[in-house]
């Protein structure tokens, strides 16, 4: 557990015109741990995630990935560094099937050089690798050839998360992954998060649901009005503690 952090963001500040969205916020993500990012609406959670995933450039601060400092210039750059983000709105393509979604824009081609030039898809290979990836993550989908649009919300979310980690990504940022899901489906997604953790992935989970935090998270970082107001081990706190940090009633500094 004392290995080097997968990701360190230190002293991150970001403002939009007059609004200071983030003020000197630091956060560490560790391999094999789930970190909750908590805060009320407008506390700066999404801004922080966007700074880490390359969508925003922070005004100040440093980001270290696996110990090396990087200026993350785009979401593509973040992905190359092993950081994958699953946004609140599902990033799956409904008319494509499960395997096609998993390999979207990273398709395998066949037919050698010419096949690669024209983009001739190697569907069989993609399906096989998709099946083994989903099996590794214990994700069950009735048929890989079904369009994702015909799957349940939980299954779709599982495909989105599966895509995030299918590429050996070591850092996964999840923005309210269970926001629109029912009880049973939510449980499946939480199981999946635990599964990622057990495989050594560093997970950042944004959520409003305290029960989920207590269920799967190891530590929690709480933002209040753009500042970090608390950083705690989840085992040491109660639900009420977390809520009081979020509402700004209390802070650990």
């Amino acid at each position: 557990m004392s290995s080097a952090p997968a990701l360190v963001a230190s002293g991150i500040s970001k403002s939009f015109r007059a609004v200071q969205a983030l003020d000197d916020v630091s956060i560490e993500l560790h391999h094999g741990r789930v970190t909750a990012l908590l805060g009320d609406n407008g506390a700066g959670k999404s801004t922080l995630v966007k700074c880490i995933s390359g969508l925003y450039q922070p005004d100040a601060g440093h980001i270290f990935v696996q110990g090396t400092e990087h200026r993350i210039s785009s979401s593509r750059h973040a992905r190359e560094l092993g950081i994958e983000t699953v946004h609140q709105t599902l990033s799956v393509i409904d008319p494509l099937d499960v395997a096609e979604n998993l390999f979207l824009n990273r398709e395998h081609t066949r037919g050698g050089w010419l096949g690669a030039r024209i983009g001739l898809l190697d569907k069989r290979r993609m399906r096989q690798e998709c099946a083994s990836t989903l099996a590794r993550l214990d994700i069950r989908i009735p048929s890989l050839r079904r369009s994702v649009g015909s799957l349940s919300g939980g299954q779709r979310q599982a495909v989105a998360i599966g895509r995030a980690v299918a590429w050996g990504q070591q850092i996964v940022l999840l923005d309210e992954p269970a926001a629109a899901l029912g009880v049973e489906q939510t449980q499946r997604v939480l199981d999946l998060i635990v599964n990622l953790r057990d495989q050594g992935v560093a997970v950042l989970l944004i959520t409003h649901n305290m029960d989920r935090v207590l269920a799967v998270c190891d530590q929690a970082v709480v933002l209040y009005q753009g500042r970090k107001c608390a950083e705690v081990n989840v085992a040491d706190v109660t639900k009420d503690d977390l809520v009081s940090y979020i509402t700004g009633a209390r802070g650990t500094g």
Partner: protein
Amino acid sequence: MIRKSISKQASAGLPSPVEAWIDRYRHNGGLRQYVVYLAFALILATFSIILHDDGFLSSSNLLNIGRQAAPIAVMAVGMAFALAAGEIDLSVGSVVALSSLVAAEIVGNHGFLAGALAALGASALVGIVNGLITVKVRIPSFLVTLGMLGIISGIARNWNDLQSLPIRNDRFSGIFGAGGLGPVSSLLIWIVVVGILGHFALHHLRWGRHVLSTGADRDAANAAGINTARVKISALVVSATAAGFAGILLAGRLSIGRHDLGEDYLLTVIAAVVIGGTNLFGGRASILGAVTGALIMAMLNNGLILMGLEVADQLIARGVIIILAVALSMREAKET
């Protein structure tokens, strides 16, 4: 509850190909994804009975329908890609005329191949301009291509002062419309070739998947790193080039280039594509459906004429049938 559903899925194991097909059939829209083929069979059967004595089923009449369908089918395949990418191309009719004129101009001095390539090149150029303006200036393709329709129609009218340009090249005419392989008209062969090419590109090329992704959810496609601007431009280029090829087929069949070829094809083409199961607003496309839709449109045209309907009544009957067919195929889009 959780355990139960998991064990149920797990015990199913690997599905057999038949089970897999049934599963996809059920969950990808069921019977309604085949509406266009049922409509085709229904209309064919109806005309066969009503128009039996008028020779509807004679080989010469069926060939006629195929010939009429060819340019519509080729344009429909191109339009399906534009719609799949979430765009629309209203300039296709004018591109048909432009292409026929360019072909007629070049074929005479430089041969049939140069003529065809020049016509396709000019058409592709129109598509590039359509795409660049749509993507870079961020004007909806609906408006860009509407403007382009006017511009290209004007150019076509000025080209030879509304006069047709003759094409006197047997090879050009033979390959693109008038000739054939034995008893099979080259136009029918072109329908099959273009249909297969389109289907293959949509389902087996990375580009086809990216076109569909871009039309279904541009933000998600962007997030996956797809260059959606380039995808949209390429889809409009394909639609314009297909229209250009339809122009070549018309020029070949009639042995002329003329400013009004393809003029009234636009709505027929869009109807064919949408009846075929392509979503007017992107993200869902069927190439075989579009080709079948084109055959339906040609068959309607032919059958209504054989029935002896006045032009005015033909228009009304065709309009009603199109609305019915589109309504049927749109229901699927809402429910899935």
